[in-house]
């Protein structure tokens, strides 16, 4: 017999971090929700404007709140499921402090405008490297090390989900973030346009799958049967839904790019595999809810189970809605609207939020070795939170559908019914205000949790009791027990073998072989990925060349970087879909060949403001500058923040040279600009400033950031309508 003690100190740390970052994430969410209802709340500062805070909110919610919750769950349950202390206390602590350091770095760099402009992968390259080190080197090694020194022979289903999460998140993170640095906190991804979009949503969708779904299923499989004190409903359903989920999820990413310039075959694969995901996802819901059979009367009195039941129900709803939204014709209406926002919040607040809260309320008495300070407060949290979610999602579903229908409406004369985009924005205001109320309630609930955590912590014993457990080490000479004999065993041995295969006894054997199990999981994920990635990169016809498309000039590139810094992509798409209403509103639909120099792509995922793919040449320089300085003066009812600092801040002409060189390294044909980008940028800036002066009253703007941004905006979407260049080989000019 060996003696061991579980490390609960590390779980306490992750649990506290979860609650604190949760409050922060919800608070920032509330602030940006208020900004959409009333742009005054952008506060007129660069670092508090919506475009910079929205990534802070999503990163805080996903990586800080949900991330720490996952780590708390993994560290608590893995030790018990393996009958072993974590592999290394040092790694545990490096993991904890490393991760909190990454979050702090994110909280500092995102508001300052350092971003890769890829959703949920905004963090710049040094932080990306830190994430890889902490995730693989500290967390991964620590987790797999624990599996290897375990005293429980077979791996329980929760651990399968943890394995899949750890492996896949590492793969996704590394491949989506491959980029070339162009400064200490600036980089360009190695992919461009269509391929960058594909990689981003392969990553983005699977961040949802392997950061917000599979680890939380693992969490559910451990904490729900513990809290309900009931056996899990079906072991064989666990097997089937685990493998189908892991294999199918990874294909689904392209459903984020329906009707875009992504090749249609990829879009079709994304849709079909998303539809297939419905039942594998529901397998988890069934196993969760039916585990409660015989324990329903306890749900009425136990806030932990209440949170779990509602959490799993939201999981079921979201994973039905996901396949629905992935159907192309539904997506045609929903894409770029608030429908997506409602969908992800049903998942994030309902599933991730409530599973986390349930887990924490269950853990508190165990971690602090005292009773929960107030069960009543926990129940209040449950009700306030539930009402908060409903008040959030219902109006936002309504907003999404309203928006989608208004964008595509035509009147009897064959014109758009709402040709001015802002008319559609105005309709959403009441719904945005209701969301503010819902978000406030959800935040209040989290504060109640924080109070309960602090008060329970205050009642902790002077010294935590460290229970010593005993278990024998695993014998290296283990032989699987013979399967029960049937009539077939003696008569037709080969048929019995087939029967055993179908019954899944091989799986039982895999469950005691963590390395083999991990390899097969990795293969499942990689095979699916490569099936989509390889053709996307290799088939030339996916991106038909357009002869008139040229690289951005150095000044336009600088302007594009400002567009990225300010997070414009959070509200403006640059992708006109081949649909009548879009072509009428925005112009010729976007084509793959237009984006070959777009490192990173800026197609966006949401139209809080209008699409900008062909904004070039539609307004005067004067209009743009005035509009950036004070949008409401030109567009009544606009909810865009003011960007008046762009009229004061100076362009960093010296940095332009470095950035052009980095782009040239990625194969963008920059020609002479590789050596005199700064001069070229100055010349173009002077030209635009002169034109601006002729058009309106702005003078002496030739070194201001706004000029670079205007240069970029005026270029957008114009390449396809200009005459063929005489010398097609020359790059760097427009």
């Amino acid at each position, binding site marked *: 017999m060996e003696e061991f003690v579980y490390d609960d100190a590390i779980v306490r740390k992750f649990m506290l971090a979860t609650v604190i970052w949760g409050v922060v994430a919800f608070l920032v969410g509330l602030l940006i929700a208020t900004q959409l209802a009333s742009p005054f709340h952008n506060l007129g500062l660069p670092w508090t404007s919506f475009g910079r805070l929205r990534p802070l909110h999503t990163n805080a919610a996903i990586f800080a709140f949900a991330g720490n919750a996952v780590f708390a769950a993994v560290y608590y*349950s893995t030790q*018990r*499921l393996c*009958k072993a202390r974590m592999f290394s206390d040092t790694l545990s602590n490096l993991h904890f402090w490393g991760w909190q350091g990454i979050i702090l770095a994110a909280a500092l760099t995102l508001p300052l405008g350092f971003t890769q402009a890829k959703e949920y992968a905004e963090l710049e390259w040094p932080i990306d490297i830190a994430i890889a080190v902490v995730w693989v080197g500290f967390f991964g090694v620590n987790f797999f090390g624990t599996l290897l020194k375990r005293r429980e022979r077979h791996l*329980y289903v929760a651990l399968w989900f943890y394995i899949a999460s750890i492996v896949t998140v590492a793969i996704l993170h590394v491949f989506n973030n491959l980029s070339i640095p162009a400064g200490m906190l600036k980089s360009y991804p190695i992919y461009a346009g269509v391929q960058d979009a594909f990689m981003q949503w392969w990553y983005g969708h699977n961040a949802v799958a392997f950061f917000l779904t599979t680890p939380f299923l693992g969490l559910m499989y451990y904490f729900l*049967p*513990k809290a309900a004190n009931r*056996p*899990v*409903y*079906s*072991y*064989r*359903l*666990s097997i*089937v839904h685990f493998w189908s989920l892991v294999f199918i999820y990874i294909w689904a990413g392209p459903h984020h790019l329906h009707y875009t310039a992504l090749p*249609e*075959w990829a*879009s*079709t694969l994304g849709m*079909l595999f998303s539809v*297939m995901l*419905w*039942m594998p996802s*529901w*397998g988890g819901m*069934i196993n969760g809810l039916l585990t409660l*059979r015989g324990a*329903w*009367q306890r749900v*009425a009195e136990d806030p932990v189970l209440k949170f779990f039941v509602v959490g799993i129900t939201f999981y079921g709803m979201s994973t039905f809605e996901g396949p629905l939204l992935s159907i*192309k014709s539904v997506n045609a209406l929903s894409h770029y609207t608030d429908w997506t926002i409602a969908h992800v919040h049903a998942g994030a607040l309902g599933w991730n939020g409530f599973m986390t809260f349930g887990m924490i309320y269950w853990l508190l008495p165990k971690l602090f070795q005292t009773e929960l300070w107030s069960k009543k407060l926990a129940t209040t949290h449950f009700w306030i939170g539930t009402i908060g979610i409903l008040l959030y999602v219902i109006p936002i579903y309504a907003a999404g559908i309203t928006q989608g229908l208004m964008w595509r409406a035509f*009147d*009897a*004369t*064959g*014109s*758009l019914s709402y*040709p*001015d985009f802002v008319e559609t924005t105005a309709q959403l205001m009441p719904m945005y205000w209701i969301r503010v109320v819902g978000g406030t309630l959800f935040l209040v609930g989290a504060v109640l949790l924080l109070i309960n955590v602090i008060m329970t912590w205050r009642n902790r014993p002077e010294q935590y009791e460290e229970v010593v457990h005993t278990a024998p080490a695993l014998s290296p000479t283990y032989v699987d027990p013979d399967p029960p004999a049937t009539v077939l065993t003696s008569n037709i041995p080969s048929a019995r073998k087939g029967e055993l295969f179908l019954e899944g006894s091989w799986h039982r054997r895999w469950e005691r072989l963590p390395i083999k199990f991990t390899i097969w999981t990795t293969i499942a994920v990689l095979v699916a990925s490569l099936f989509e990635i390889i053709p996307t990169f290799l088939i030339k016809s996916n991106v038909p060349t357009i002869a008139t498309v040229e690289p951005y000039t150095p000044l336009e590139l600088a302007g594009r970087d400002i567009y990225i810094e300010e997070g414009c992509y959070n509200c403006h798409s640059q992708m006109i879909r*081949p*649909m*009548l209403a879009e*072509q*009428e*509103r925005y112009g010729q639909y976007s084509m793959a060949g237009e984006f070959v120099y777009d490192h990173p792509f800026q197609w966006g995922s949401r139209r809080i403001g209008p699409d900008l793919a*062909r904004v070039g*040449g*539609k*307004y*005067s*320089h*004067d*209009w743009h500058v*005035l509009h950036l300085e004070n949008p409401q003066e*030109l567009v009544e009812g606009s909810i865009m923040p003011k960007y008046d600092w762009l009229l004061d801040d100076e362009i960093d002409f010296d940095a332009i040279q470095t950035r052009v060189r980095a782009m040239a390294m990625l194969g963008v044909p920059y020609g002479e600009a590789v050596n005199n980008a700064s001069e070229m940028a100055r010349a173009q800036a002077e030209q635009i400033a002169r*034109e601006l002066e*002729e*058009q309106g009253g702005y003078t002496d703007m030739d070194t201001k950031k706004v000029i670079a941004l205007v240069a970029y905006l005026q270029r957008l979407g114009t390449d396809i*309508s200009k005459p063929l260049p005489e010398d097609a080989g020359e790059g760097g000019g427009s």
Partner: protein
Amino acid sequence: MDQNQTSPTQAELLDHEYDGIREFDNPTPGWWHLIFLGSILFMFPYILVFHFSPGGCSIYDQFDKEMADFYRAKFARLGTLEPNAETIVGLSKNPEAMLMAEGTFKGKCASCHGANGEGLVGPNLTDQFYKNATSIEDLYRVLDEGVISAGMPAWGRQLHPSEVVLITAYAASLRGKELPGPKGPEGDQIAPWPDHPMFEFESGESAQ
């Protein structure tokens, strides 16, 4: 919820246990298998229809058809509009044509010229003063080719040719409304538009 307390007697409780957690081996529900299988098989007819049907059923096929139908419906009655004074003035007197143009004006022009043409960043279109036109044909040219130095886009590059004529007529029709705008008069007072009879639509199906 008490009625839900059926005890799963038929289920087999497996003999393993992890930290006190045990597992039943209930069979997966039949409907689960059926829907899962159905969602997999759905792939084949879908790919066949949307990627390999003889008539073409891809996103772009559908879009081309939609566009063709739309333009047929929208411009069938207008026919091809010639950019001359007769057509433009005639159109500006036709209330139905002006109704058709209004949406485009709101979507493309109002952001600079104001919702009713009273001017904003761009000049007031309701007074008697013009910066870059001395005739109604000039006005058409400004819309079609733009005035780059003034920031006026070349709409000929973005809109259907007949639509540019239609919008010119709409802009011309605003003259004389004398709405007060944020800017004073810009440019010179020019001669009134020539007089032409109202443009009559060719008989035939209605615009919509």
